[in-house]
């Protein structure tokens, strides 16, 4: 019995999502091997080998794995399938894309976005935007699982697993990479940020996000998020979206500014430890989940808050 964890990484290092997924993978009770598929990804493989409890790291270093294309990555994972009983990956966009392809090739039903390992074949997962929690038992001999990382603690270092190279699988050659627009930012990534400041439709413009939300976020060392309404209106880029179909986050502190609190948004942030809401509509549903609600005009309250934090030495 061995579990294969497929790592989220940027070739140089592994991402926090991998550490969190390892906690879920270890809960299956079997040895955990980690697959690092990328190009020039030795740095990430070395980082994975230091994770506590990892028994072996497989490094598939090949140009075919440079750009997250689903077809070659799925072919690689399937080529390794005979040696493993479970395939576990974080529910990031890369693995939401590839894991169901793996599952279908193995004739297995994937268990998507688990939030708890009840036993090696039984898991909890949210349905209906988190308005219900389903407990499911997988009857498949091989398990294919994606993990909602916000609900698992990050595993730390402490291991020294050997790194072996894994042969690339034949590339089906069905798709190719054209380009990408990846936002470069010094701010923490949403899914691993300890504090998040999010803006909603009430921000009214991209400029107001820059003028009100971003300075507050920078004062707090926070990541910046947005509601779907704000992203749809073009006030914020898509990779900022928090919600049922965007990113699911659970920071120490979530500050919701001008966000009414549709269930689809709450689905993405209601597991945050402390929630602050600033909204001028006192009946906004966001106040039903907020620990601290401030009914105020955000255009006054947010600069005041930014300034007050400055005085605190933030």
């Amino acid at each position, binding site marked *: 019995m061995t579990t294969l964890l497929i790592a989220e990484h940027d070739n140089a290092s592994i991402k926090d999502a991998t550490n969190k997924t390892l906690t879920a993978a270890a809960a299956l009770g079997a040895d955990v091997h980690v697959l690092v598929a990328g190009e020039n990804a030795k740095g990430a493989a070395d980082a994975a080998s230091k994770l506590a409890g990892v028994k072996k790291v497989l490094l598939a270093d090949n140009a075919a794995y440079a750009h997250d294309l*689903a077809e070659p990555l799925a072919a690689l994972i399937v080529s390794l399938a005979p040696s493993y009983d479970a395939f576990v990956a974080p529910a990031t966009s890369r693995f939401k894309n590839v894991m*169901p392809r793996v*599952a279908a*090739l193995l004739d297995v039903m994937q268990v998507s976005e688990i939030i708890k390992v009840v036993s090696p074949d039984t898991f909890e997962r949210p349905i209906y*935007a988190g308005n219900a929690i389903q407990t*499911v038992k997988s009857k498949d001999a091989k398990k294919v699982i994606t993990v909602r990382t916000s609900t698992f603690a990050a595993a730390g270092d402490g291991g020294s697993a050997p790194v072996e190279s894994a042969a690339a699988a034949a590339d089906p050659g069905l*798709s190719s990479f054209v380009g990408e627009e990846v936002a470069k930012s010094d701010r923490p990534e949403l899914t691993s940020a300890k504090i998040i400041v999010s803006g909603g439709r009430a921000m009214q413009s991209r400029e107001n996000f820059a003028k009100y939300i971003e300075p507050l976020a920078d004062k707090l060392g926070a990541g910046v998020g947005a509601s779907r309404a704000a992203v749809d209106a073009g006030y914020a880029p898509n990779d900022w979206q928090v919600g049922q179909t965007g990113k699911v986050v659970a920071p120490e502190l979530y500050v919701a500014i001008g966000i009414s609190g549709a269930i689809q948004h709450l689905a993405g942030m209601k597991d945050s430890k402390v929630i602050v809401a600033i909204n001028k509509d006192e009946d906004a549903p966001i106040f039903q989940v907020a620990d601290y609600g401030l009914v105020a005009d955000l255009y006054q309250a947010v600069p005041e808050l930014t300034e007050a934090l400055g005085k605190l030495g933030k």
Partner: protein
Amino acid sequence: MKVLVPVKRVVDYNVKVRVKSDGTGVELANVKMSMNPFDEIAVEEALRLKEAGKATEVVVVSIGPVQASETIRTGLAMGADRGILVKAEGNVEPLAVAKILKAVADAEKPGLIILGKQAIDDDSNQTGQMLAALLGWSQATFASKLEVEGSDFKVTREVDGGLQTVQLKGPAIVTTDLRLNEPRYASLPNIMKAKKKPIDDKNASDYGVDLTPHLEVLKTAEPPGRKGGVKVKDVAELVSKLKTEAGVL
């Protein structure tokens, strides 16, 4: 090029679902049902391809109870040409849906299949990718832009870090994200016209697909509740509470 669009009948996105007290699922009796919102975006995209002269026919297919024909009619009222209803009762998992859709695709031979990226009931986000695997086709999930280039496709995808553009060899699978388009409303004349459009009636058994679930649902429960906290009167009180009470500053 023919475009196939699978659509799912789900609880309307405005309905606050309630978990049954006996833990056997969520309350579906007398609840408003609609087409999965991501599937509406998929239908809209297919119709725009047809209007742009890139697609010749748009076929809407749904797998589910007999009432799923209403969901197909919604697609026909938006402008799709014909429908296929594959009747299947109970919980049909994404893998079984993908197997049925593969059989439909083998018969229909579309150049493109557009699906919603996920259904808002089970939130699985699997069917499109599984169908691509079973057909051995290329896939682009979470699309925010789709361009036809001969029999190939150029697709911009919403990914965690921003946007990625990929080139797909046709035939291909594309799944929709929110920003791909804004679906149209069906006009009254089109709703009337849709009543005359053909819907092919099939059964899951016609395709020889085993619908036995691989995942056994042991129970369905309410999520742990979160209570609202307090209202603060001003920014100063907020900062003070965050510092001393919550300890997050």
